[in-house]
């Protein structure tokens, strides 16, 4: 066991020679990190007809980018048990892998060949073919390196990581409020505990020396990918320093990003990812460029790296979906199945009526708007993954040919799942679900030190993210092993469970108030004769074979209405548990674009309402909350509200050139553009509203970057914003925006001033020519 291990495997990276990988190990006693290179050029596989493969083999034998081609028998898919003859192609150098695959695909006119394992990276494959994983305990002297325990163990010693924060500074005000010009020089650099200063070439050399001295495992930045590293490299190049003089990693790399920046859409949101700079032998964690780091910290990420066999460096920049896919890949390879490069399984033809029936989400029971007390909340733990496991839902197990009589049938849809073979998805998920439950159980143990509990909490969070994506990926068209029918079947089972749970609650004396997919809010019908919630949760867990948790009782909970139709909206509420904790969903404080003004009002109002012991108590405190809103409004009107609390953060959805109408953010983006600062979709822009009726991009708003602190904000615009915030909380008590507008004297719709701004010559010109620009 781990007593024999004297080192950890930190990471595997590709060697620059293109023919080997570098294994980085950290000594348990000295903490020293060493590198050893292993020759490794993994093949990828090609499947096609016998004659096509023979032709291909002949063509490839003289191809300069090919090292070798050989026949190999492999299992091509989860749907086929039998192995088939493929060509195993070993590229001359690892970086040729994808290009060579594309060439072969083209030779087969993009339909005669199916390619496998193409986009698995050499480090990932090295892990998988050598039973290794990131942070595995190893014996440094053994050859080849072997892990002394499997990655699945729950209790393990993670290597202590030396973390050094890195930040560069220019002259002048703090960087958040300023953009360095192209002429700017770096004045100081913070690395770890040290602050370096001096003229640039010396400063940069001192940085490299300090990094070599401290020898951190992790360099942590806030915006390093988009700011610090590109600037360090730019200035290093400008001052004539070479890559070998400025090695930020444990070996020097060229001054360029590993991968360019990109914007993409995920869960209905546009996000932006900065270019990434890798530092071989070290991990670069840019907190602004990592979706997962904030929630899960190193503990969660290291746990995920172990299980997925992906480098920590990959995981820190990618989504939990990437982790889950990597885990599926590991599982598939273990079953002897090769991993298809391009998913080639179109959705089967279905009628419109079937789509209406099948293409639905989980069950939603509309909540009754207003305040309620004595409310109990129940949540299923990992409901969707549990359903996938207990019902054996996986692409290859659904409507399989071997079990036409299977009793596992998705309610209402009729999809059957296999009873003979266990699917890839349940195989991948079960250890994850168990792991999460085990960590959760350990967290509840009495006497566990706070730091260990926090560590477990972060691992639990990471696993939760992975499990959530596991479901979403069933319906994602590019998911390697996903299939839309699985997605539909999971929802169908979940709807059935929710309906049964609600009915079972009623039978023992509850009234159902609200239900969303895996959570249920109920209220005892009669005071005095109240069911035992813990016992109910336990009985239901047994009945459904799905763990149902009792979240707790609310002193009171307020369900909020939609502004459009007035009925309750799922997942928009605020309430206070008997334990004293608040639970807030869908209100301002939970949204990233809420102004500090509204956030402040919410905090104060919730504090007031929070003192209420029950629903009548909440109603009795509403007038006080309204009086507080009035006081906010009066202060706003005086024009004295601090500007930084009025900053609006807007996440960019469409690039400036695609704006069709003139909005607040249009004004802000044009101001940034005028400074030479382009912002990509997914990035944010922050501004204060100065005159919402203005048609000039200079006058309507002011971006945070150019604020002087002397600006006069648009009082009516902020009263409107405040009114909206107040309405969100208090609408169930009859306080809506129209009432607040009348109360505070906000004009309903103001007349817009003519478009031209006196200070903008372009606009004057356009106006004189009678043009009618959009903005």
């Amino acid at each position, binding site marked *: 066991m781990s007593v024999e291990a004297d080192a950890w495997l930190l990471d595997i990276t590709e060697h620059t020679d293109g023919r080997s990988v570098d294994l980085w190990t950290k000594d348990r006693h000295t903490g020293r990190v060493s590198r050893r290179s292993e020759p490794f050029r993994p093949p990828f596989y090609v499947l096609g007809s016998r004659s096509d493969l023979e032709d291909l083999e002949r063509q490839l034998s003289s191809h300069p980018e090919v090292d070798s081609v050989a026949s190999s028998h492999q299992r091509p898919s989860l749907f086929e048990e039998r192995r088939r003859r493929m060509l195993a192609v070993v590229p001359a150098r690892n970086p040729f892998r994808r290009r060579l695959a594309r060439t072969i695909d083209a030779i087969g006119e993009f339909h005669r060949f199916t390619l496998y394992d193409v986009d698995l990276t050499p480090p990932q494959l090295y892990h998988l073919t050598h039973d290794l994983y990131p942070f595995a305990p190893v014996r440094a002297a053994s050859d080849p390196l072997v892990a002394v325990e499997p990655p699945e163990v729950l209790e393990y010693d993670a290597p202590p990581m030396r973390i050094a924060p890195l930040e560069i500074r220019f002259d002048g005000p703090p960087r958040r409020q300023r953009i360095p010009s192209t002429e700017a020089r770096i004045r100081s650099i913070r690395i770890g505990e040290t602050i370096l200063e001096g003229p640039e070439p010396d400063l940069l050399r001192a940085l490299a020396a300090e990094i070599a001295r401290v020898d951190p495992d992790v360099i942590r930045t806030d915006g390093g990918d988009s700011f610090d590293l590109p600037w360090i490299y730019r200035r290093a190049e400008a001052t004539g320093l070479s890559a070998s003089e400025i090695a930020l990693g444990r070996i020097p790399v060229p001054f360029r990003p590993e991968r360019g920046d990109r914007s993409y859409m995920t869960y209905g949101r546009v996000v932006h990812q900065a270019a990434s700079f890798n530092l071989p032998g070290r991990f670069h964690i840019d907190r602004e460029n990592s979706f997962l780091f904030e929630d899960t910290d190193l503990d969660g990420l290291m746990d995920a790296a172990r299980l997925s066999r992906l480098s920590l460096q990959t995981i820190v920049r990618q989504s939990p979906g990437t982790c889950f896919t990597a885990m599926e890949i590991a599982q598939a390879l273990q079953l002897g199945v090769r991993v298809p490069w391009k998913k080639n399984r179109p959705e089967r033809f279905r009628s419109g009526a079937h789509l209406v029936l099948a*293409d639905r989400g989980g069950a939603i029971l509309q909540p009754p708007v207003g305040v309620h007390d004595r409310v109990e909340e129940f949540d299923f733990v990992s409901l969707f993954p549990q359903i996938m496991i207990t019902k054996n839902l996986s692409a290859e197990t659904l409507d399989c040919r071997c079990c036409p009589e299977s009793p596992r049938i998705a309610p209402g849809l009729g999809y059957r799942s296999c009873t003979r073979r266990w699917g890839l998805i349940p195989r991948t998920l079960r250890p994850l679900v168990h792991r999460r439950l085990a960590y959760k159980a350990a967290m509840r143990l009495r006497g566990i030190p706070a730091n260990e509990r926090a560590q477990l909490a972060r691992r639990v969070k990471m696993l939760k993210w992975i499990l959530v994506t596991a479901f979403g990926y069933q319906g994602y068209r590019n998911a390697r092993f996903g299939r839309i029918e699985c997605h539909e079947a999971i929802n169908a089972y979940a709807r059935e469970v929710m309906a049964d749970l609600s009915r079972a609650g009623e039978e023992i004396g509850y009234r159902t108030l609200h239900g969303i997919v895996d959570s249920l809010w109920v209220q005892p019908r009669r005071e005095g004769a109240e069911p035992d919630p813990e016992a109910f949760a336990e009985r239901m867990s047994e009945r459904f074979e799905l763990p149902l948790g009792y979240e707790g009782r609310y002193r009171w909970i307020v369900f909020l209405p939609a502004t459009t139709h007035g009925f309750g909206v799922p997942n928009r509420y605020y309430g206070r548990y008997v334990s004293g904790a608040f639970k807030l969903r869908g209100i301002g404080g939970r949204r990233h674009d809420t102004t500090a003004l509204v956030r402040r009002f919410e905090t104060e109002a919730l504090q007031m309402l929070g003192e209420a012991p029950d629903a009548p108590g909440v109603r009795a405190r509403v007038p006080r909350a309204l009086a507080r809103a009035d006081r906010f409004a009066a202060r706003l009107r005086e024009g004295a509200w601090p500007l930084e609390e009025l900053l609006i953060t807007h996440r960019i959805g469409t690039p400036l050139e695609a704006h069709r109408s003139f909005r607040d953010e249009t004004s802000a983006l044009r101001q940034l553009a005028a400074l030479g600062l382009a912002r990509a979709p997914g990035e944010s822009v922050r501004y204060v509203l100065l005159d919402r009726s203005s048609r000039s991009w200079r006058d309507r708003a002011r971006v945070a970057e150019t604020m002087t602190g002397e600006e006069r904000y648009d009082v009516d615009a902020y009263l409107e914003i405040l009114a909206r915030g107040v309405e969100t909380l208090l609408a169930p008590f009859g306080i809506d925006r129209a009432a607040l507008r009348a109360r505070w004297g906000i004009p309903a719709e103001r007349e817009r001033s003519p478009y031209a701004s006196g200070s903008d010559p372009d606009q004057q010109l356009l106006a004189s020519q009678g043009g009618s620009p959009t903005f």
Partner: protein
Amino acid sequence: MGRTAPTYRQALEERMKRWEAFGRLLTTPEERAAFETLRTGARRYVAQATNVGSPDLLESILLSVLLDMARRMPPIAPPAVDPDGS
């Protein structure tokens, strides 16, 4: 991630918009209020109608409206005679 079929909620709102033209020519406040009640009734059972997954939108709307009316009527007395006739 997109979906091919509109959700019941979306289809319902589409239809409600179409019904507005009907409401515009109602001439008494009573009729207009009754019409509004009807539309509210349709929206009350969105979750339940979604759970049916019927391709017939009108079936789900009518069922919702009827239930909403039934629920506001005085309770119906149980049949005097056992329906089995015994």
